């Protein structure tokens, strides 16, 4: 039951960064399996293959940046517990060491890492994985600690010696938090999943959103958050700090925030049904424009994408050409930023030579993908990518064994080979669903905090079919 061992691995150099065993020592052979699985996934351009098995243990792994976290268990344990443990471990490490958790960073803070693991997990079962709470028990390596350790000659505080439960009335928040200026910022991030055909018609789409809180408030504030257009929320989940019944009864998100950053809630936006008022889908701050109207009348359940992608491809026996044109639609008041396209070429492509009128395009041999990134759209030109490819001639290669069959082979259907294009983009400053933060009240404390809300739209899985 529970996690036996944790391996922290560097997936670039395929080496071990740190290891921790809670039960018996698990052989590190499992790491090889993890690396194998990772290489496989990279080759096929897929993600989410998370389980490997070795002789007597099962390994679950997730990769974030250059680090792969692998946890093993040898007995019946909920597999999702393992996955969630790893992903929350990553969240904690990010809260401690900053957004880029690298091997160098982890090497530098081995003691903190170990201390954290000891606090987070007892005999293989995760206990408290809230960065906000752990910070009280294991002080993060911050500037202050480093300065004192160099100036005062001592090692800084490694661990606080107080009763953990006096300090931590809530697992995610201690009761001695003090800030000179009290601030709370919300980021409402919505992501669009869409499948588009080559003509630009949206085949299927969905909008998911999440609210991220960055809380820098003293004491024990109790926050009530109301959302406008909350009827659009279809399915949702909450941070443990949110009182579920309160939201269920009057749609008020009531919570005592975790200190620092946390994801308060995630939701799925209800797709408008064709029967409903079509205007519901067009919030006022999205400009009403001709494109939006036609899009909506065509397919009521599609979402407005801020850009269009027109791919074209032609493959011959040994050569081929792919060209992609990308342009932004004036659907949003805000400009589209950091657009990047992954163009996955057919498997018989040997080499590719991409060239782009704007941005940068590179070909990655391992995954057979051309990655084209356009940090900023040019004001009046349409960026265009063209890729010349050399291909393996399969018809010659697959010479039939018997000579009599050769004319059969030539009659084989000519397959129309496709390129998979996945797009990613960001639109800072605008939301897509119309769900907004209406009010945010802080109670239980006397101060008036500085508040701020930002809206973002980004791509989820945007797939273009050719």
């Amino acid at each position, binding site marked *: 039951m529970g996690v036996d061992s944790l391996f922290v691995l560097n997936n670039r150099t395929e080496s*071990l960064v740190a*290891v*921790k065993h809670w039960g018996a020592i698990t052989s590190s*052979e499992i790491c090889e399996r993890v690396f194998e699985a990772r290489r496989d*996934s990279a080759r*096929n*351009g897929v993600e*989410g*293959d*998370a*389980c490997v098995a070795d002789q007597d243990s099962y390994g679950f792994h997730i990769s974030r940046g250059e680090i792969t976290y692998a946890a093993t268990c*040898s007995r*019946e344990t*909920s*597999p*999702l*517990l393992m*996955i*969630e*443990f790893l*992903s929350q471990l990553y969240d904690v490490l990010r809260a401690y060491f900053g957004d880029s958790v690298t091997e160098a960073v982890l090497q530098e803070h*081995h*003691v903190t890492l*170990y*201390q954290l693991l*000891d606090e987070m997990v*007892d*005999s293989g*079962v995760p*206990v408290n994985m809230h960065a906000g709470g752990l910070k009280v028990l294991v002080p993060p390596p911050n500037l202050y600690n480093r300065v004192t350790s160099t100036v005062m*000659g001592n*090692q800084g505080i*490694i661990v606080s010696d*107080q*009763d*953990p*439960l006096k300090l931590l*009335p*809530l*697992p995610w928040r201690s*009761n001695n938090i003090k800030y000179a200026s009290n601030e709370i910022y919300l980021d409402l991030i919505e992501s669009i999943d869409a499948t588009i055909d080559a003509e630009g018609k949206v085949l299927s789409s969905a909008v998911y959103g999440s609210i991220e809180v960055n809380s820098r408030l003293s004491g024990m504030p109790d926050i009530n958050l109301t959302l406008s257009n909350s*009827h659009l929320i279809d*399915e949702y989940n*909450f941070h*443990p*700090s949110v*009182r579920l*019944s*309160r939201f269920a009864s009057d749609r008020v998100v009531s919570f005592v925030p975790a200190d620092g950053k946390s*994801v308060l809630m995630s939701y799925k936006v209800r797709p408008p049904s064709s029967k409903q008022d079509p205007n519901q889908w067009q919030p006022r701050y999205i400009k009403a424009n001709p494109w939006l109207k036609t899009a909506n009348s065509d397919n009521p359940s599609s979402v407005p994408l801020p850009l269009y992608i027109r791919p074209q491809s032609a493959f011959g026996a040994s050569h081929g050409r792919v060209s992609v044109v990308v342009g932004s639609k004036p659907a949003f008041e805000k400009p589209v930023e950091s657009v990047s396209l992954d163009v*996955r070429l*057919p498997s018989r492509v040997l080499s590719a030579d991409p060239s782009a009128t704007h941005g940068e395009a590179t070909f990655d041999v391992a995954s057979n993908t051309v990655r084209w990134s356009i940090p900023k759209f040019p004001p009046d030109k349409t960026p265009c990518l063209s890729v010349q490819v050399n291909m393996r001639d399969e018809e010659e290669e697959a010479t039939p064994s018997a000579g009599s069959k050769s004319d*059969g082979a030539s*009659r*084989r*259907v000519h*397959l129309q080979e*496709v390129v998979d294009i*996945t797009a990613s983009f960001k639109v800072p400053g605008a939301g897509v669903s119309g769900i907004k933060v209406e009010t945010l009240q802080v109670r239980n404390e006397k101060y008036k905090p500085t508040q701020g809300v930002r809206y973002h739209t980004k791509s989820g*899985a945007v797939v273009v079919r050719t």
Partner: protein
Amino acid sequence: MGVPPGHGNRQFVDDAQIAEEQRELDTKLRSSSTKDKLDALKKLIALMAMGRDVSVFFPSVVVNIVSESFEVKVLVYMFLVRTADQKPEEALLSINSFQKDLAHPNPRVRALALRVMSSIRIQVIVPVVILAARKCAVDPSPYVRKAAAHAVPKIYRMDNGRQEELIEIIETMLRDSTPFVLSSAVMAFTEVCPSRIDLLHRHYRKICRMLVDMDEWGQILLCEVLLRYARSQFLAPDTHARELGAVSGKHGEKKLELALPSTEPWYNEESNAGIQSIVASSAAFYSDSDEEEDSDEDSDSDEDKAKKEKKPGGATAESRGPGWLDEDHRLLLRCTRPMLQSQNSGVVMAVAALHFYLSPAADLPKVVRALVFAAHSKPESQHIVVKNICTMVATQPLLFQSHFNAFFITPKDPLDVRALKLEILTHIVTSDNASLLLRELQAYLRSSNYEFVALTIRAIGRCAAIMPQIASVCIRSLLELSLHPSPKVASEAVVVIRALVQQNPKEHIVVVMRLMRRLDQLMAPEARSAVIWLAGGEIFDGNEENIKASDKELREKFFELATQMMRRVVKGFADEHEMTRQQIVNTCCKMYVQDPLRMSTSLKYVFALGASDPSVDMRDRIRVFRALFPVDGTPSSVKQHGDAIILCEKPEPKLPSPAMQTCEHALGSLSHFLEHVAPGYTPLVKHPSVQPPTNVREQYFSGPSGRDGDSSALALRNGKSNGLGTGGFYSSSDDSSDSDSESSSYTGSDDSDNDSDESDDDSDNDSGESDDDSDDSDDSDDSD
């Protein structure tokens, strides 16, 4: 891995360096300066992290345990926890200092000391450790009590002869009313004595109410325990099938089609009475829990609405019908339902599994919605959740029909996930969205991942088999694919075509003839043998009387073509795969029956070749067939049976699902995911057929009603006034009673077993209060 491998001279240098390092560390550890000690300890921990063996430092580290510096102590313990089981003898020597630390004023030190002691794996000290665990189990600090709960399974693993004593400790700890501790206590229970379900009876209601307040990890574990408890203590919620194993044979278990209408007006169904009682029970279910009702008010699916409209009619049915649930059974369902909104997909999965097995069918759509949403949370958990959904779909396809779009495949999905999603899609497709699915599948066919294309072909075949009206469209598109460059794809296409043709042979004779012309281009043995089978002419039905002239003509053309094809095939008989060879023999025999003149030479030839076939099975077959079809004129007594045997009635082929068979292990478990029994897995027990006594759970609640939870509406109790109880913070009012008792434990009072009973008596009164001001209770609580 771990220790970097050295080569030749470097190894030597490394060794020398390591020895040097060791000496340095050793002196530092034994120095009197705290700073030096800390330095050395940190270095040791860094070495440990790299997987290096640091047990040589054990003696010099262990002397520091008496250090006054808290930091040194913590680091020493960190070191000891890791190495204690490697150096048990040395650890034994310092056992006195551990024991001394068990009385340390700081709870963290006490917890650490216990943690180290339970990590030393020597039988001799087991009694000492048990003593320590027993002491810590009633420690004023919940932090220490939790450590004690974690120590119990460790002791059990070391010496399982001491089960009795450990069960005593667990019994004590189960009385604890801090959710934080209780979850670990239940975990110890599952490891040490999972079969002693009687221990849980008294605490069942308390555990249910505390669930919301536990950490997410405890929730996952407890949902599993409570599911097993409920399976042994409560009757099945209704007669709908829940387990895959149960679906096949047993009648009486039905699919949800009856309860959740899709297209047909379901109230016309014959088994009306049963449904009404289900609806009635679910109506009653809602009425005593307002809060849940609210949560769904504006997100109700159509089914729910239909159900509500039906309520007045259904409610008149007697409430103790087949849908009747025990109060405690409902309590569990009610207490777990809010957890479907957890951010932790593991919790959602555990709750969903619990509800899938335990809640009435009418309540499942909500659960399914949460589960489908959880599948989206991160790519790593998607695989596991989808796998579980796949099993649920196989038993109850209708539940997932409204989530059709959620299972479309994205290019990032690994092959396993794609297979599962295709499986789900083919299960939940209806005539309404069949065209949508086909369009989607058509797009998948163009993928450059041929394995995926093969899976998609199978999925198309399954759709066409379910809905014959789209079969001809499917066959046409598959026919093109039979010339696909990948033999795997091509053969899959032919195999699926064969299966579809067989379902409705008359319409597809032309297709078969085209396939037969193409035989030379088909490489894969599966595809070749499928076509050869089709040539056998079995797709025509036997009665010859009412055949139209045009059909007859077609038929003759067909046989002409088949004979030509067979002649060519027979020529290359020796080069064929065994599978194909067998099919050639079969088909030759079949055609011989129809036209003995033309086929006798071919058949003779095949018999001659087959008699010296490398395969034993093949040679045996030839021997039998020779007797049945005596082409060379040898007398045979079984000749007249030949036709009947070779042309016997054959069932329509089922298109088996390409995805692995969904497995019967408990949903959400590792075994389910891996499809084999992982160590430590126990299968779910069947619901009892007779309700076991329900009063066993009463003992704990001495109050007259014993069911305070049911009557109280939501009231968030914020135990701020007395030391901010973690526990009751976010629970709704039925938990508030517990939160009171637990905040007293936070203030440090020695919360032993006797106390907890009293505090629960209090809690009954409390809940009465909270009823009065239930509406604005959270406001008032916050203000004071």
